[in-house]
């Protein structure tokens, strides 16, 4: 009887010998491997990508229009040729869609200066140009705004000291950045009127501190990406030759 525990001990050893032993974590090694040109290329993967790549390259490089000049967003203080082009193009492409769905017209377009992501170079304009100008997936919305809300929009633009792209709105400010004149379709903005403002989802949600869109329960999502509007516009025009104009200017003479 005295040796019984000894037998048990042997049995335990016996059983453990047949089972998976428990494993203990003893060591961890961590490192980072650079994916560099010293690595070989997997040909099967490369061959799989190739048709996708070729299609994209071909499509991106297909010529859609011609740009008469090189345009940048730093070409003007309050409006620029490239910004005017983008805002007008958005109006031209979005308004027929909006009108068809609602029977109403877009009253104005507001984009943001920072949203012009590249220059437009003189020469061929391709799908790639649209991707460079607008790499993001932002979509167009039409926001219903009361005249009183429009005052906040106008006040924002007048103080912003930036050439935010606009279309169909005309704005004149004085040397103190106060509004001298703000008109849509040649008429002053009336408090009780409703205005249909096309913008993108980023700005509607307060991007670039454009907090004047909200609160708002009347928003029409066009499900139309800005980039696609640009591509559609490029396809329709032969030559792009936008100009800086008088849609947003600062009057420097005091007597006006």
């Amino acid at each position, binding site marked *: 009887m005295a040796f019984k525990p000894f037998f048990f001990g042997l049995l335990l050893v016996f059983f453990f010998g047949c089972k998976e032993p428990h*494993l*203990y974590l003893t060591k*961890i*090694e*961590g*490192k980072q*491997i650079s994916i*560099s040109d010293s*690595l070989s290329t997997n040909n099967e993967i490369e061959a799989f990508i190739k048709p996708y790549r070729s299609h994209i390259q071909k499509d991106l490089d297909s010529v859609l229009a011609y740009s008469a000049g090189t345009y940048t967003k730093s070409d003007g203080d309050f409006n620029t040729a490239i910004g005017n082009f983008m805002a007008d193009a958005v109006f031209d492409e979005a308004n027929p869609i909006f009108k068809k769905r609602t029977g109403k017209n877009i009253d104005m377009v507001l984009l943001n200066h920072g949203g012009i992501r590249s220059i437009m170079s003189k020469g061929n304009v391709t799908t790639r140009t649209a991707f460079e100008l607008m790499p993001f997936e932002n979509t167009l919305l039409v926001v219903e705004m009361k005249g009183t809300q429009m005052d906040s929009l106008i006040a924002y633009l007048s103080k912003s000291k930036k050439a935010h792209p606009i279309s169909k709105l005309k704005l004149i400010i004085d040397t103190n950045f106060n509004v001298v004149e703000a008109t849509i379709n040649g008429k002053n903005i009336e408090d009780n009127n409703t205005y249909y403002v096309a913008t993108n989802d980023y700005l509607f949600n307060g991007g670039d501190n454009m907090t004047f869109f909200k609160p708002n329960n009347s928003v029409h999502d066009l499900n139309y990406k800005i980039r696609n509007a640009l591509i559609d516009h490029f396809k329709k025009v032969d030559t792009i030759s936008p100009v800086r104009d008088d849609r947003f200017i600062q009057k420097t003479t005091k007597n006006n």
Partner: protein
Amino acid sequence: MKRRDFLQKTSVATGALTLSGFGLQSFSIPVKTSQITILHTNDVHSHIDVFGPEDGRNANKGGVARRASLIESIRRENPNTLLLDAGDIFQGTPYFNYYGGELEFKLMSMLKYDASTIGNHDFDNGIDGLYAQLPHAKFDFICSNYDFSNTIMDTHSKPYRVFKKDNIKIGVFGLGIELEGLVDKNMYKETKYLDPIETAQEMTRILKDDEACDLIICLSHLGYDFKENPNKISDLKLAAATKNIDLIIGGHTHTFLSKPTIVKNIEGKNMLVNQVGCYGINLGRIDFYFDSEKNKSAHGTSITV
């Protein structure tokens, strides 16, 4: 009667023991070791091709076809390998704009990714856009703190998964970043964001106690660290506030680390937080070595980074 049987069997066992060789050790517990290799990427953002030679920052780096050959050679060296991604697979090159993520998922499947969590940019074509690409993914989406039950993604992601490699049980769970304020509500719809620390506590309890995992890995898209916003949850915060996580594979902040960060968890035990930048220009590799000899681990786990 029974006692006699018992004694006889025991003597057989003893005999076998004596015959087998020189003592207990060689017969009873042969030393067994195991190596688990974890490979990981994050924020690849549709970067499929190698960066061009003119690129200002990442010239000649990255490329899925090269990553594939590297992963293949590591798997040959150690078949007990898991390949994981920490989210933001989508958005960043025209491959995404043209194909909506189809090619990204197909390539990750060809590279035999085991799992990925979901990043904020994976909602860039809406939750419907993500759902539409799922047929192309032959790997699991693991996200524990997004409640998709009122969305089209319901049942298409897992809160956790247990992988078994060489008899080692590896539990993987996933944490996504708060979407409100970062992603348009129209994109993520009724996806509910749950508290990452509470979720991690629940997941580690399940993986450690119920599933008896030997290793626990968190795939996180929370972000490495937010110095300018110290109250925001991050991988470093999560690591310090939880227990039983061996490795957090992070993303979102595109953080390039010279080496994985060793963090003390809430119990004072060392664990690792890693992230490998972005755009598929690096592959993270963490090797876990297991040993049946307990005395080796008596001094704790050694970490070499």
